[in-house]
């Protein structure tokens, strides 16, 4: 199994890798990196949701944001368990690197949510993009423990999307001011959501070969654009892209939406933790980690058997 060609044949035949199995170190490193990135993103996303619990208008929306926060932090918890078990880094190492700005997380959590409408744009647009990308990972995922956790994460993200749709409808059907608020938020979040899928996959992307990803980045991104351009326009919103047009000839005459060329510089900046809100987000998360040290300490003590 240590032989890479033999391992590739095993994966190609639909083989599932379990923690107790031998696996090539390259596979272990790539899968670990991917799960760590996913865990970091869930945690940073959960902290954003948390910021909006006190600001959410009304008890029902507060309850939804409370539950979403628990979901995201809980997902991070499960993913850090799977990642730490791979023996590359401990959970503490992963968290310390994240909070000191030496790790990576999804581009969308490097921007500031300015108004409540931004939070709805995140719930509607960003959750949908994350859902599409996670579902594509779940579809083939060759690492057993990750696939099992993804099954529940995908189910819960699907549930979040329904909340996002419900909240968006409220603004779309609301007053002109609400409509404007969402349009302003859409102008800020459309491109980060599209960029979440990443630039076109490299032809030799090991994550595709080893079936961690089941779809190329550009395929997922295009499916997202084809779905959300008409939906948002249908609600009366404008996509913030002057070059956007519908090519009726494309797609064997079935037509498709073509966007302006995507500027990847903002995405690259976020991957270096140099996005517009990266510093504040990381500092807040780091401060939060320090402030809650006493809780972890108390829990550790309470688990010790009585002397």
């Amino acid at each position, binding site marked *: 199994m240590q032989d890479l060609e033999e391992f590739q044949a095993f994966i190609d035949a639909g083989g599932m890798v379990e923690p107790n199995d031998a696996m090539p170190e390259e596979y272990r490193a790539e899968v670990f990196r991917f799960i760590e990135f996913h865990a970091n993103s869930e945690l940073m996303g959960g902290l954003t949701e948390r910021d909006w619990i006190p600001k959410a208008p009304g008890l029902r929306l507060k309850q939804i944001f409370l*539950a979403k926060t628990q979901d995201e932090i809980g997902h991070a*918890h499960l993913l850090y368990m799977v990642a730490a078990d791979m023996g590359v880094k401990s959970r503490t190492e992963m968290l310390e690197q994240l909070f000191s700005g030496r790790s990576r997380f999804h581009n969308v959590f490097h921007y500031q949510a300015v108004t409540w409408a931004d939070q709805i744009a995140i719930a509607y647009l960003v959750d949908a993009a994350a859902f599409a990308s996670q579902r594509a990972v779940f579809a083939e995922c060759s690492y057993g423990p990750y696939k099992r956790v993804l099954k529940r994460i995908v*189910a819960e993200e699907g549930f979040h999307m329904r909340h996002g749709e419900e909240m968006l409808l409220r603004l779309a059907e609301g007053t002109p001011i609400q409509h404007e608020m969402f349009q302003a938020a859409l102008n800020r979040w459309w491109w980060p959501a599209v960029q979440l899928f990443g630039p076109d996959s490299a032809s030799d992307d090991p994550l595709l070969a080893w079936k961690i990803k089941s779809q190329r980045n550009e395929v997922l991104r295009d499916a997202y654009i084809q779905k959300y351009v008409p939906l948002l326009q249908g609600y009366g919103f404008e996509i913030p892209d002057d070059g956007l047009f519908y090519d009726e000839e494309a797609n064997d005459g079935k037509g498709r939406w073509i966007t302006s060329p995507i500027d990847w510089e903002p995405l690259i900046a976020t991957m270096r933790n140099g996005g517009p809100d990266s510093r504040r987000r990381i500092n807040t998360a780091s401060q939060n980690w320090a402030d809650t040290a006493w809780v972890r300490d108390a829990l550790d003590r309470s688990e010790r058997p009585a002397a």
Partner: protein
Amino acid sequence: MTSMQTELTSREARVHEALGAVTDPEYPDVSIVDLGLVESVDFGRHGTVAVGLIPTFSGCPALAMIAADVNEAITAVEGVVRCEVRWLPAPVWSTDRVSESARVQLRNDYTVVLRKKDGTLLCPVCGSNTVTDQSSAGPTRCRSVAWCGSCRNVVEVMR
């Protein structure tokens, strides 16, 4: 067929069938009937149906969505004019209400297990009894987090 079932009019049978097809938003293929969320179904005059549901946890964020899904499914049944869905304060939900078929689905599809009556936990992946509790809180209100030391999988426990 039990005598109760044979007494059901076809409309009532259709209502029960529609209700059984409503799934939990967090387990998109597990029936709310199998999860033990349906406490009562009462048929009134003039095509009215009253459904009494009980929540797993009162703070569950899916309650409004489940009620809306039930309402939509029941009112779509031929012969039903109006449906009233209510969340009942009693009885209190417990894992005893989860059917055997839902337990199998949760175990095989979601890596979620329920504690046996004597408190033991068996790993949903490898079946061994090496599952240890990790934290009382997980992603949802109704599950805690555990770990199987044998196959090294994250296990969630419905509580």
